[in-house]
């Protein structure tokens, strides 16, 4: 009996030692003062939350493209458009789910006209404008809904409320207009638009000498911040390269490392990762056996397979971008091209909805062949806010612009690596 008790005690003490050792490591690694309950939670996180996260996340695809302009119309054409990065981020996060609800619950499709669209801008509503038109089926699937409306690429959408019902007006890339009834929350529009006061932005239909009618223009002089662009990594970039390699399925401990001037090259199997001193990253494979496999189901429609591919690329590219760039800079999917079954996805960088122009260089580009990413390049941006700069007054920009210009604020790289805001005509794309 005594021997049995001794054995039992040894077992209990051994288990206690293991638990205490785990807690000891958590307390040592974490600088936070976790409560005993939280300590136990952290110790068992890997075994518990995995299953919970799978339960709740479902299979909803994440949005890969964002609007470049958001505006809140409070009626009779009065409107507020966020201008700074912070205002834009808040507006985006507060309206994103509303538009998902509106797109997801749309019904009663009908064709509309420019007049109807412009008249709707006099109601209370929220406008989203895309720099590059987005196929409606993508917007619909990102809203976790599958609406069979083919061949419409949405360049702007306006959700307005009338008699507490929400109507979604769409303008497509061909200049045609479409309209839906929705079950979205009309009270959200009323409540949200009431919180914003007009801030000097007007719809061009009130001043449309040579500007497209539904373009939002900044009526007065205004200033936006400039940003200095950090080139190169500060300090040791070993940690950065490990994170990057893990995302690209390269084992940091098994890869060979070479240096070519300021460039560090990592090689594992057929994968090549170049980390340049100017923060540029390039991933390539030397043969078709390599590449980062994407989870693309084979027995689905072309649209679904394309969406699965975008989701796979988005997760990797956005993850790398977050690792290497400033919080304030946002990536957005701008185009997809296909050549012999190989797809190239381009992403551009935006700050506060304003496109950051760096010549012909896309902020990120990925080549997908046979369900695998075989080439990837990223030009991250690490920005530091500097002084404010006045943007060319609209009247002057309008005088210099072409007929029916689409004038928007963009950032261009000026002297001394400073990003400066300017008004540019984006009628033909950036």
């Amino acid at each position, binding site marked *: 009996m005594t021997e049995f008790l001794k054995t039992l005690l040894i077992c209990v003490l051994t288990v206690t030692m293991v638990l205490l050792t785990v807690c000891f490591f958590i307390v040592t690694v974490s600088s936070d*003062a976790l409560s005993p309950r939280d300590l136990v939670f952290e110790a068992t996180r890997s075994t518990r*939350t995995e299953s919970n996260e799978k339960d709740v996340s*479902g299979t909803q695809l994440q949005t890969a493209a964002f609007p470049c302009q958001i505006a809140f119309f409070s009626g009779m054409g009065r409107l507020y458009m966020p201008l700074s990065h912070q205002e834009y981020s808040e507006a985006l996060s507060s309206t994103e789910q509303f538009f998902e609800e509106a797109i997801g619950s749309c019904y009663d499709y009908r064709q509309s006209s420019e007049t109807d669209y412009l008249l709707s801008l006099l109601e209370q509503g929220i406008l989203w404008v895309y720099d590059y038109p987005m196929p409606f089926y993508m917007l619909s699937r990102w809203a*976790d809904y599958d609406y069979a409306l083919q061949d419409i690429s949405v360049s702007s959408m306006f959700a307005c409320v009338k008699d507490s019902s929400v109507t979604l007006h769409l303008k497509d890339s061909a200049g045609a207009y479409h309209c839906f009834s*929705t*079950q979205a929350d009309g009270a959200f529009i009323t409540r949200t638009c009431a919180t914003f006061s007009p801030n000097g932005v007007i719809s061009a239909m009130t001043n449309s000498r040579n500007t497209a009618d539904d373009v939002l223009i900044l009526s007065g002089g205004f200033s936006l911040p400039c940003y200095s662009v950090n080139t190169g990594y500060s300090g040791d970039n070993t940690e950065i390269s490990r994170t990057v390699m893990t995302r690209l399925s390269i084992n940091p401990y098994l890869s060979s490392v070479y240096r070519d001037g300021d460039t560090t090259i990592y090689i594992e199997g057929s994968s090549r990762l170049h980390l340049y001193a100017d923060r540029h990253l390039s991933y390539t494979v030397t043969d078709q056996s390599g590449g980062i496999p994407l989870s693309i189901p084979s027995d689905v429609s072309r649209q679904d397979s394309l969406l699965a591919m975008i989701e796979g690329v988005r997760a990797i590219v956005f993850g790398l971008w977050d690792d290497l760039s400033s919080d304030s800079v946002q990536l957005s999917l701008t185009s997809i091209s296909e050549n012999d079954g190989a797809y190239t996805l381009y992403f551009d960088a935006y700050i506060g909805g304003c496109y950051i122009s760096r010549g012909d260089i896309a902020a990120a580009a990925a080549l997908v062949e046979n369900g695998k990413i075989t080439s990837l390049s990223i030009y991250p941006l690490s920005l530091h806010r500097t002084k404010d700069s006045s943007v060319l007054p609209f009247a002057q920009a309008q005088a210099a612009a072409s007929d029916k210009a689409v004038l928007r604020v963009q950032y261009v790289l000026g002297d001394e690596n400073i990003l400066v805001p300017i008004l540019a005509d984006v009628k033909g794309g950036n």
Partner: protein
Amino acid sequence: MEWKKAKWLIIAMLLAVNIVLAVNIAYRYTRALGAELDSLRAAVEIAPESYGFEAALFEQLPRYLYEYTGSRDLPAEAAVASAIVHGECKSTDEGGGVFIYNSPGVERVLFRRGGNITGIVSSDENIIISDVIVAAAQKSGLQTLGEGDEVEFYYDGTPISNAYYSHTVYGEHTSLTGIVPFSTGWARGEKGRSRGEMVLVLKNIIEDHGLGAIKSVKAVYFAESVDSKTHLLTPAWQVECQNGGFTVSIMDKSVLELSVN
């Protein structure tokens, strides 16, 4: 005989190791606790005195809060609708996370993502709608305090600041609105930011919006949604100031609610 002695030796060694580990953990925990408090006090000292920042205001708040996600409980929503709608209750999935429950008459209850409820039902003395909602909320792991339109919802002892239920009787009909996230269970997610870091966030928000001196701060959860099928309880601080108030997320520091007098 030798093996029996060895067992005592093993027990003694294990005891010693456990004691050393326990003492070490206790020491490190106490030190971390002190460091967290020091960083909070240091952050309070940086803030201008005119904003009324006092360490005592923040020391009473939980050191850390976690965010929670929960799968939306559609059967619970259907059960609530069936209990308050008279006659046969038909449901429609409108897409975008909108579910409508209709009776053959004009009764209609609508559930949206994030626990948003609106509806109009026939007035009936035998059905106390708030009791139906409270019972469903309690099944979802929420706690409640009070009754009727005064009911407050809590999770893990912390109030959910935007959760509410309210109704208005218009003769034969009653309209109802509310935010109550019915969930099949709650999964703990990431840990929120430290109190010291949040004090600096508060200072910036008060400066940006000219809200004046702080009157009170309390820790709350804010009911939101991750997508149409998933609820999110975001830990936040609800701050009352001289010229208004705001609720700020302690996850991503975003302002969730703002009112300026």
